[in-house]
């Protein structure tokens, strides 16, 4: 069973469209994250949710809106897509939000978004 699963794996779309990426974890973790990895492979956090509540919201355009219907799901909706949004988006989960020493993040396989 896949611990953290993201869909879709690939997403090709036109500028200006609205798209969503879904993430689900079956690890029973309380915290979920969205990261963006750009062409230089830098992994940058976008959002973090703990028990369905937003705890981290880094400087990302408000076109990006995360939604957590329950603690096992964290979806990412992107409005009015732009060329610069092209990247690989990773979902991850951990038992706690980085606060405890015994804490590891598990990553999904990533969603490669290409905006044309």
């Amino acid at each position: 069973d896949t611990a953290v699963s993201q869909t879709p794996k690939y997403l090709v779309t036109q500028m200006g469209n609205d798209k969503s990426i879904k993430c689900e974890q079956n690890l029973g973790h309380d915290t979920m994250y969205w990261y963006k990895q750009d062409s230089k492979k830098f992994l940058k956090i976008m959002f973090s949710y703990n028990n369905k509540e937003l705890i981290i919201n880094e400087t990302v355009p408000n076109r990006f809106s995360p939604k957590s219907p329950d603690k096992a799901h964290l979806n990412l909706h992107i409005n009015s897509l732009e060329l610069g949004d092209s990247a690989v988006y990773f979902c991850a989960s951990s038992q706690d939000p980085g606060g405890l020493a015994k804490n590891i993040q598990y990553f999904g396989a990533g969603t490669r978004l290409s905006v044309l």
Partner: protein
Amino acid sequence: EDKVVQSPLSLVVHEGDTVTLNCSYEVTNFRSLLWYKQEKKAPTFLFMLTSSGIEKKSGRLSSILDKKELFSILNITATQTGDSAIYLCAVATGNQFYFGTGTSLTVIP
């Protein structure tokens, strides 16, 4: 501002060589430092370090943390082509993880 810096950014070696990857950090409320290996898809966990001077080892890979000098190293001995990947360092603080830019390692046969 919290930050994690890795060096070198990229490295090309021959099979059998030994490599050392570096990770330095400046964060408030340090909790742990983690190393990940990223091949084509998701980063996969290698080590978690919380205490200074205690080496973690897994096969040909080992890592150690220096909390006084605020850095960690990841060593890979007798490198193989399968070690080619991006190695990511992350630091966990009170409420999140900070990732470095990664070191891209290429092992040539």
